[in-house]
């Protein structure tokens, strides 16, 4: 990679910005192919980057940075604190990889989903482009204020996608979502302001050595504000109120993007702060977050078990699955915990994207969005139902699936540190997930009531069924070989 122009981490930002602008210029409903081509290239770039990090990462082990930054880039050549630094370590490389590998199949999916001049799809491509660009920029940024801008980029794009072409319910959901994410990033921004006021810099690397446990009270408040704001954006119980209507109401490809990637971005940021500049402070909140996570698991599952609408069910399952992520905070002193967390991010990202995609197919086919209406679909949509089942396996944490590996690691980390309760919660959560997943599968296996399917199910494009299947299958296959991913995280650790 001697060529200075070949910088995967930079192109991962420029490319989506470029193709979304192009898609905008091309006009309403255009740009599917630019998007797919762009995303394919990005996937390759993310892969190259991961390889690079995995190789170089081990060399850059630094005591101050638990994950040893492997690849950095100084925008404008100034270098922090004057300029803005981009940095990619194992964690961010993994997030980039996940983002591109979820986005590509979803783009293929969306292309057939929005084919029929659906008003929701008119500006989908440029919006998706900005969303992906924002996510990538967020994952590589090493500057707290710059991260604020990327957060807004992601947030606004997500809200627009939810509202696009929707009815009153959808617009209302989008507004709730908008206020939640704006207040969230507002709190984060105030935190950044306080940090800058205290230390005179917003560069993560520069802050790292400055912040210590005996920092002034203001810094503690700043940390609290930032984490609280991000919790709101991550929809951690009890801040989840905005998620089910938004994710449940949006068109399937959008719900998939949001559930799989967007909520993960703010979680990644909490993790980043935790392992990074606020290392000295945040552990004070560890058990609080874990408790909320546990509450999220139970509350979300409970709601999912009782949801009437299929996509509501899946959205609540997201609330529950996000809970698992927060269980790792008290365990983070043990390396397995971070690995469990990232494995869970991948598992849920792939599986939930697949599940929403599958749900979209079922809804298109049966023409309605209730669990009860699924009776007999197994005969009409075997591939889709298989996809749903595979995704369900991952969410339940049954082997062989990435969800299972995540569960295994979190339980082992919990036992290793004698935190029984966390293991118990994780196991209970798996069983609850089984209840709502099989609630759907059972319904689908039931014989169709006479006449219910008389109208027959609408024919669905193959691309829809198979892209959903690909995502779900990926979440299972990862469960057969998680070694490389885990080593990538270990890069520099």
């Amino acid at each position, binding site marked *: 990679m001697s060529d200075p122009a070949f910088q995967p981490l930079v192109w991962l930002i420029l490319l989506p910005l470029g193709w979304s602008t192009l898609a905008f210029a091309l006009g309403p409903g255009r740009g599917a192919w630019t998007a797919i081509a762009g995303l394919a290239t990005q996937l390759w770039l993310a892969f190259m980057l991961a390889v690079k990090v995995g190789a170089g990462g081990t060399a850059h082990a630094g005591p101050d940075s638990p994950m040893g930054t492997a690849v950095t880039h100084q925008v404008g050549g100034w270098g922090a604190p004057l300029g803005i630094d981009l940095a990619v370590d194992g964690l961010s490389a993994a997030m980039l990889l996940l983002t591109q590998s979820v986005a590509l199949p979803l783009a293929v999916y969306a292309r057939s989903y929005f084919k029929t001049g659906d008003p929701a799809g008119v500006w989908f491509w440029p919006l998706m482009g900005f969303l992906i660009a924002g996510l990538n920029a967020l994952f590589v940024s090493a500057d707290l204020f710059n991260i604020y801008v990327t957060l807004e980029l992601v947030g606004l794009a997500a809200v627009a996608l939810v509202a696009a072409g929707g009815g009153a319910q959808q617009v209302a959901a989008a507004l709730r979502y908008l206020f939640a994410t704006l207040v969230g990033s507002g709190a984060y921004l105030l935190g950044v302001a306080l940090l800058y006021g205290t230390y005179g810099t917003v560069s993560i690397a520069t802050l790292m050595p400055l912040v210590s446990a005996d920092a002034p009270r203001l810094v503690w408040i700043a940390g609290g504000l930032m984490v609280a704001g991000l919790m709101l954006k991550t929809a951690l119980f009890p801040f989840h109120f905005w998620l089910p209507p938004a994710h449940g109401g949006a068109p399937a490809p959008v719900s998939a993007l949001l559930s799989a990637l967007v909520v993960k971005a703010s979680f990644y940021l909490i993790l980043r702060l935790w392992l990074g500049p606020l290392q000295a402070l945040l552990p004070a909140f560890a058990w609080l977050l874990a408790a909320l996570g546990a509450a999220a698991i139970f509350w979300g599952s409970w709601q999912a078990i009782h949801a009437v609408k299929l996509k509501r069910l899946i959205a609540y399952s997201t609330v529950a699955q996000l809970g698992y992520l927060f269980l790792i905070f008290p365990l983070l002193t043990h390396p397995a915990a971070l690995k469990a967390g990232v494995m869970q991010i991948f598992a849920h990202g792939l599986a939930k994207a697949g599940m929403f995609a599958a749900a979209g197919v079922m809804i298109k086919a049966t023409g309605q969005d209730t669990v009860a209406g699924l009776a007999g679909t197994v005969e009409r949509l075997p591939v889709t139902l298989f996809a749903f089942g595979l995704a369900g396996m991952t969410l339940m944490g*049954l082997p062989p699936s990435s969800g299972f590996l995540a569960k295994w690691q979190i339980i082992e980390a919990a036992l290793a540190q004698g935190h029984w309760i966390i293991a118990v919660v994780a*196991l209970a959560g798996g069983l609850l997930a089984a209840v709502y997943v099989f609630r759907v599968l059972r319904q689908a296996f039931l014989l169709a009531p006479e006449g219910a399917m008389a109208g027959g199910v609408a024919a669905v494009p193959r691309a829809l069924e198979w892209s959903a299947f690909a995502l779900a299958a990926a979440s299972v296959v990862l469960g057969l070989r998680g070694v490389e991913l885990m080593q990538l995280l270990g890069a520099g650790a």
Partner: protein
Amino acid sequence: MTTNELLPLAVLASSLLPGLVIFTLPESWIAVRTTLNLFGAVAKLGLVFLLLAGVHAGGSYGVRFEVLPGLDLALKADALGMLFITLSAILWLFTTLYAIGYLEGAPHRSRFFGFFSLCVTATMGIAMAANLFTFFVFYELLTLSTFPLVVHRGTDKAMKGGTIYLAYTLIGGTALLTGIVWLHHLIGHTEFAHGGIASALGGEYAGQLKIIFLLLIAGVGVKAALVPLHGWLPQAMVAPAPVSALLHAVAVVKAGAFGIVRIVYEVYGVEFAQSLNLLLPLAIIAAVTIVWGSFRALFQDDLKKRLAFSTVSQVSYIALGVALFGPIGTIGGLVHLVHQGIMKITLFFCAGNYAETLGIHKVSEMDGAGRRMPLTTLAFSIGALGMMGAPLTAGAVSKAWLMDGATAAGMDWAIWVLWTSSLLNAAYFLPILWRAWFRPVPAAWPEEHIPQRGLRETAWLLLLPPLLTAAMTLATALFADAAITPLAWARLIAAREYVGLETP
């Protein structure tokens, strides 16, 4: 990759690949599907015999993949595993034949045979698992792949049965997982090994190890239908007959029983388990299950339900044999693993025949069935007598070894348990035989689907499998002391398990 690594994989693939292909086949491609099914079953059988020969010759077959750093998905073909593999491979061939006949013209056959093959693949994986992690992976796969078979008919009743089955097995799986992770945390690995691995831990861990043992046994006990974890088995009766046969003889309950064997012998090690006083409680649970199952069977009028409770009772013979400290008991338990399978599958084939041919589902409807379907009823009688442990049947062999084992272990009460069970077995099987052979033929059968044509009392594909398995029931007993019989093989295993003690 060497042959020794490929062979186990090939055994899995021989049912996995056909299964996956079958999923994609259109409903109408009957010939292709049937060919694939039989090809898979026969190919598997061939591969298994290759393995068998190799293992008998002392060769070691195995392969492992790293799933996570320090966590391997590992397969190995050892003597104990081969016992189970061979049984499943043979019975799978028969069940496939039977199912093809049974489901003729039924809907969703591609789906059915797809999951059917996955289910057998999972069973093979369980048998060849080289560590608890791998065992668990396939154990849960088995749960998932059997659910669609249980609810295959898609009726509300089927759903209810399927849901109960899931509830039991998933909760059991959770207990098992907890135990496995805990063990993995303590020891750092969960590889199966002769003499066990738990003994490596110091005495201070005794308490934890006891809890883990409880979790593990509870986990596999669900599938093995140990009282009080047996509730799902009678409910799962809603499944089509071939599935019941599979559940009861080849896959599910066997997987549970096999798990108990692995855990006692190769995780804890029988001596160490004895030293922790874990065997006696296990033996007592097994005994209770044996008696309770037989007792409940007495009052079932539904034929398949009666057979189900009989399974509950019979499978625990295996657990009992394992729990009887000493090589003789071990041999009894292991040999029963095979014998029970052969006998029970015969009974379910026959039950299926009665239902398919004459619409007979209840014991009270069996009057004169023997005159109408002599061959089926003959097979049924052999199976039933075997269950009672009548002479010249496989049942007699295993019971004899179990009783000797009990005496050798100084647990004479176990002998009484076995006798009681035999009497109860007689009490609930003999009336059936009596009705079938000696009661007059009723005016009309409940609903006759398949008319008689000379000797052909029902479809050949339905008739042959039970006759063959019935023949095997006798053969395993008559030639018990031949070179290659379940008994001989069980002795080989026992010899390898109890390195110290001399074996009969």
